[in-house]
């Protein structure tokens, strides 16, 4: 006898048990330590912190463990946790000019003050599988390098000094200021996303956005869909201090030191016969070491400035609503995956409609056929 | 050069279907040098399908479209090689779209828009190209001071005039126009019609103009074809067709318009 499906409670419970089992895998293999993820899958942790928009290495590593290595799922876990946290206030903007640089390169100059610092990079490795890692070989110990290279100036300041660079706050200049005359920076986590969005909101959205999505969009601008002639002016990775002024103290204290990746693109000059040409900017910033993301973000940031720079908006990468509405992978994954939820009521209605339309067309065919036969007979 | 006693364009038995939907059926007509033919009818009557088929933009299912090239021979445009056909389309022919955005390059200046066809056929002297652009902008009554401006900064009427200049710069002999005054307000329409009539007369252009506006047809065309349900139901001299319509549909069409 047919029994209608009812209540999935037990099914769900069992599914969760299975999931836990699969997550653990073969019990002969040692359980993965969160510290191991943090240390040895550090770039996954960085990505999850960035897209989860919470700087906490241990939590991010734990989320990766729980998500079985599904990084979008892990970012989702982190976001869901973040939203429960009490907010004490806003930190003082970090100063990347004061960064203790571990990696810093510029593609626009062969050499420059502070030098090109390759740092830990895949860039010039040959992508050959290193079978020695199978045996768990440790690399040779590095000698302690000379510490503290001092403060490294931003590359774009060099162009800026000559007036070759547009001001950092863009050509629109006038930023929103509050009654106290302070520059007001929006907060995407407190206010809904509204269009048109200013650059502060756009950058926040991009910073949280999906690496793959931004990568593809940035790539599309390079291939002619909204081209903006980018040069990697500077890419830097290192540690910066985070300062905070607690109201009860009234002075700044250092609350953290975090790792960030910053990318400043130098783009296509604007100008005409009358207006001096200048280079324009695209900006990318991420938690941890997320170079690909920072670069993609900078490309897309620049592309999204099309309107402000009087460029025609013609490509997906320049379309603010398109980009910002779809950049967030937690939102995107939710909606794509919701298709797995039951939709049978809607589907039933569609089914009925399609059947009816087909029947009507069949009926019409029969009628016409009769008519033609009659005509032929006459 | 062929003399004016031979037709420039000969269309015969032209048909086009879109699946079960009829585009146009068994259309035939000839067009002589310097002659302007109007094609009128309501939306869906097949006028635009006809225009696209005879201007090498839409391959017909049946029928022949022949054009007398500058060599004097009458050639089937769908039998030509693609380079020949495309050359024809960008030198000897012009196509004016209803929406100027479809016929202009919105990202380059007015001057570049006018100069493009010249460069496409090998013009390589910047000064001369610019001179021609300048000349054509004044012919279509656009302030030559706007030569370096983007078309997006132009009004609808100016964009339409720029499209015409861009098309006529290579000295075509045949112009196809698809509702050239559609989308413009009435005073702007009048100015554009006046300009087009002047240019067509002055340059001795042959033209096929598709319009649903009988006033436009009366003002510009020597001859008129009335289309209804994909077929030409009546054709003749413009005044004759409009003042003494024979086909019931034409009578309906004419009576539905306020007489001037």
């Amino acid at each position, binding site marked *: 006898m047919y029994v209608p499906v009812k209540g999935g409670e037990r099914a769900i419970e069992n599914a969760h048990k299975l999931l836990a089992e699969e997550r653990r895998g073969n019990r002969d293999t040692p359980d993965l330590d969160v510290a191991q993820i943090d240390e040895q899958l550090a770039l996954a942790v960085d990505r999850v912190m960035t897209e989860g928009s919470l700087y906490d290495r241990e939590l991010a590593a734990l989320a990766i463990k729980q998500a079985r290595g599904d990084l979008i799922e892990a970012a989702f876990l982190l976001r869901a946790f973040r939203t429960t946290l009490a907010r004490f206030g806003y930190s003082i903007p970090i100063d990347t000019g004061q960064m203790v640089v571990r990696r810093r390169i510029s593609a626009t100059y*062969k050499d420059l003050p502070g030098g090109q610092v390759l740092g830990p990079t895949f860039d010039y490795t040959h992508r050959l599988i290193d079978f020695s890692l199978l045996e768990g070989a440790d690399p040779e110990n590095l000698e302690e390098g000379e510490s503290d290279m001092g403060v490294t100036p931003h590359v774009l300041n060099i162009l800026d000094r000559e007036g070759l660079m547009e001001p950092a706050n863009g050509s629109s200049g006038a930023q929103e200021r509050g009654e106290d005359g302070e520059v007001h920076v929006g907060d995407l986590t407190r206010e809904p996303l509204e269009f048109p969005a200013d650059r502060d909101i756009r950058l926040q959205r991009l910073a949280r956005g999906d690496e793959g999505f931004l990568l593809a969009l940035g790539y599309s601008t390079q291939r002619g869909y909204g081209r903006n002639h980018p040069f990697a002016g500077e890419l830097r990775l290192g540690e910066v201090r985070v300062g905070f002024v607690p109201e009860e103290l009234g002075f700044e204290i250092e609350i953290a030191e975090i790792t960030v990746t910053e990318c400043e693109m130098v783009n296509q000059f604007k100008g005409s016969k009358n207006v001096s040409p200048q280079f324009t900017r695209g900006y990318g910033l991420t938690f941890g070491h997320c170079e690909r993301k920072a670069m993609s973000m900078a490309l897309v940031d620049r592309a999204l400035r099309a309107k402000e720079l009087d460029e025609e908006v013609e490509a997906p990468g320049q379309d603010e609503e398109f980009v910002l509405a779809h950049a967030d992978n937690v939102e995107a994954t939710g909606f794509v995956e919701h298709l797995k939820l039951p939709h049978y009521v809607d589907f039933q209605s569609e089914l009925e409609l399609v059947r009816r339309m087909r029947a009507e067309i069949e009926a019409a065919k029969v009628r016409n056929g009769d008519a033609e036969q009659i005509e032929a007979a006459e | 050069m062929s003399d004016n006693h031979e037709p420039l364009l000969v269309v015969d038995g032209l048909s086009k279907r879109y699946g079960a939907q009829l585009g146009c059926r068994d259309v035939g007509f000839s067009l002589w040098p310097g002659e302007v033919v109007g094609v009128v009818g309501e939306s869906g009557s097949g006028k635009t399908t006809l225009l696209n088929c005879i201007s090498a933009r839409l391959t017909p299912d049946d029928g022949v479209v022949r054009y007398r090239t500058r060599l004097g021979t009458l050639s089937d445009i769908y039998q030509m090689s693609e380079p020949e056909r495309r050359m024809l389309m960008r030198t000897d022919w012009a196509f004016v779209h209803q929406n100027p955005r479809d016929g202009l390059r919105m990202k380059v200046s007015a001057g570049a828009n006018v100069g493009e066809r010249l460069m496409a056929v090998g013009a390589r002297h910047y000064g001369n190209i610019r001179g021609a652009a300048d000349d054509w902008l004044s012919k279509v009554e656009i302030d030559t001071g706007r030569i370096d401006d983007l078309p997006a900064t132009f009004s609808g009427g100016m964009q339409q005039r720029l499209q015409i200049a861009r098309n006529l710069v290579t000295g075509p002999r045949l112009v196809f126009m698809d509702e050239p005054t559609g989308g413009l307000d009435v005073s702007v329409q009048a100015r554009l019609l006046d300009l087009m009539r002047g240019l067509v007369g002055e340059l001795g252009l042959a033209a096929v103009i598709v319009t649903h506006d009988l006033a436009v047809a009366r003002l510009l065309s020597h001859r008129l074809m009335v289309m209804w349900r994909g077929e030409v139901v009546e054709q003749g001299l413009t005044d004759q067709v409009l003042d003494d319509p024979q086909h019931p549909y034409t009578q309906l069409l004419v009576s539905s318009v306020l007489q001037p």
Partner: protein
Amino acid sequence: MAETSGYNFAYLDEQTKRMIRRALLKAIAVPGYQVPFASREMPMPYGWGTGGIQVTASIVGRDDVLKVIDQGADDTTNAVSIRKFFKRTAGIETTTQTHEANIIQTRHRIPEEDLRADQIMVFQVPIPEPLRFLEPRETETRKMHALEEYGLMHVKLYEDISQHGHIATTYAYPVAVKQRYVMDPSPIPKFDNPKINRSPALMLFGAGREKRIYAVPPFTDVHSLDFEDFPFEIQTWREACALCGATGSFLDEIVTDDAGGRMFVCSDTDFCEKRREAGHAGPALAAEGAV
């Protein structure tokens, strides 16, 4: 350096090399025409010279001497990396001296020294399609090439002049090869364009990510697009090279301090060193010598 075991000579298997050589032959037979080829995954990322590396790997023999430059210099990281790759996978001899090499793989420059008929230049190409930024669709651009519809290219140059007073393209400056195909010479500065025209050396261009190979055979006419009244011009500098004093070479700007200090030096490091060895000295060295 020891050769890497487990891989074929010069990394690619012989079948792949044969496929690439066929594409190369076709490219040479139709100068400037972009020949599609089945580009392979390489152990470097796309965009880092995989096209050039595949071309070099397909033509290199055991007796060849390879030079690799990036931005004109042998010591730039990517050049070092690629040179090392071929040393490792082919065990061939490499050099930094232009005259010693018979294969020169390059990114963004052509050496200053005149090339010879027994030399082959291999260019790394990011975007092979010169019309790409005017028309992003491949189906359209291939048709434009086939029908020789290049008016749009001149529209771009016209627009440059009308908006800036001169042609504003400075690198990847489009050329017409043998009065037929318009070609992207890869992002070399336009300064290097004249070196391709009627060069005795064979010029091969490989684009790995975009899967295209094209070529300019020796002694082929290569014309940089321009207008009669705005003829093609190359970059010039007021300064001479600070190290070797050269005045006719392509110069890089080097920022020397945080206060706007800078100097100009040859981008072609081999050329610059040779001149210094021959006793030439630019302002920077002359000043040092005087101390």
